[in-house]
């Protein structure tokens, strides 16, 4: 039977896992911001169904949703040196090229899911709401701020939360291109110090706590957004 040895494990691996955890958090936060920006943009564009943009938005969403995030990370990482000019590559090197590539790839991948969530949310708001806003003389910004956004956020908050959880889990794939996030550190501890089981236990607990915390936060957000809820929607 295998004996867990925590004292020697934390001598070697403690600070490595801590560093990895910070990288995971940073990667998650940055790609979530990117995914939200692009997702809301493409979701709104798809919903508005402007003739020329329609096929582009369709291709964007369908292609990103139907291919593995891992292959997308590899694609952007290995293609960047070919696609981008050398001067840009040199600047990106300063910030850790792998990290930038992983952030970009994960942000793009999850933006396609968020775009579909946003489109579904916009479709769920009844037409009468806009007509009513027009009837009482709301300007466009007012309609967006007081009619559309509060309802949209309330509708999409639960699915958006599970998308954020899925994003955090997918950051583990960044180890494929050598981003030193927490799963990478666990592998490193396994083959350098042979304390793989302890490392995996810590990593599993870390993801579990982080994901459950995000789910709890999302639930709180949902409650807060519904605080003035009076209508059926």
């Amino acid at each position, binding site marked *: 039977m295998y004996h867990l040895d925590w004292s020697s494990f934390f001598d070697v691996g403690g600070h490595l896992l801590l560093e990895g955890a910070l990288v995971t958090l940073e990667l998650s936060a940055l790609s979530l911001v990117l995914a939200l920006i692009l997702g809301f943009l493409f979701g709104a564009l798809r919903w508005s169904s402007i003739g020329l943009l329609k096929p582009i938005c369709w291709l964007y969403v369908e292609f990103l949703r139907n291919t593995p995030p891992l*292959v997308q990370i590899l694609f952007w990482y290995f293609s960047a040196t*070919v696609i981008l000019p050398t001067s840009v590559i040199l600047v990106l090197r300063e910030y850790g090229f792998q990290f930038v590539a992983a952030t970009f790839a994960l942000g793009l991948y999850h933006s396609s899911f968020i775009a579909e969530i946003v489109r579904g949310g916009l479709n769920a708001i009844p037409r009468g709401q806009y007509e009513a806003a027009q009837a009482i003389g709301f300007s466009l910004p007012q309609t967006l701020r007081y009619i559309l956004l509060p309802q949209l956020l309330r509708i999409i908050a639960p699915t958006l939360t599970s998308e954020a959880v899925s994003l955090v889990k997918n950051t583990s*794939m960044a180890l494929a291109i050598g981003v030193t996030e927490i799963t990478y550190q666990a592998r490193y501890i396994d083959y350098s110090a042979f304390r793989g089981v302890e490392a995996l236990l810590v990593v599993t607990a870390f993801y579990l706590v982080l994901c459950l915390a995000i789910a709890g936060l999302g639930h709180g957000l949902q409650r807060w957004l519904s605080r003035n809820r009076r209508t059926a929607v």
Partner: protein
Amino acid sequence: MNWEAVFTANNVRRLLIGDYPGDLGGVALTLTLSLIAMVFATLLGLLVGYARFAGARPLRWAAAGYVELLRNIPLLVLIFWAYFAPPYFGYTPTKFSSVLVALILFNAAYIAEVVRSGLLSVSTGQTEAARALGMSPLQQALYVMLPIATYNTIPAMTGRYITLLKGTSLAFLIGLSEVTEIGRQINNRLLTAPVEIYATLLMIYFCLNRSLSAGMRLFEDRRRFNRIFCFFAR
């Protein structure tokens, strides 16, 4: 662009079937892995989902615990558990079986939730009618709940199967030679055509997943669904 270097006869063959008749790999292995995982994840998901829906209280808690645990850790960590942890306990699993076990356990947790929502979507009028006709609980489950719940969950199941197929690409991180690993090997040998190779991989996965969702959409025709279901229920 250097497509000629990528699409040599040998590369295409390796991308499709790997080193078969040696080791099966490439798209063929990706599909094998996906299909086996789909079948067993669905079966396990049905069990767990039904247990969470209608089981006795301890069973319901166990099912809920399973779902919450597996849904909140990355698939990659699960694959690492399945492949790198057993040797510490004196057992060396094959790469294929490790990935398969991880895929099944991970996706079953999600499918259980789909199944549960499907069961919740069966209106009480239907089950009451079945009871009024004097059906036994087993008959109710098999002939009333199962077909309605299955039909209602087709779109969600399509989504899960696509995620499962995408998840097989993680197998390359422990060196299983499915299509992503073959692509990586070709890239390592050529070094001059990364865009072409990874774009090819993306196209392959895109075609596989679109075919999968097109195939699943066939079942969304209610009459066709009924015909197929009756065929299997006989």
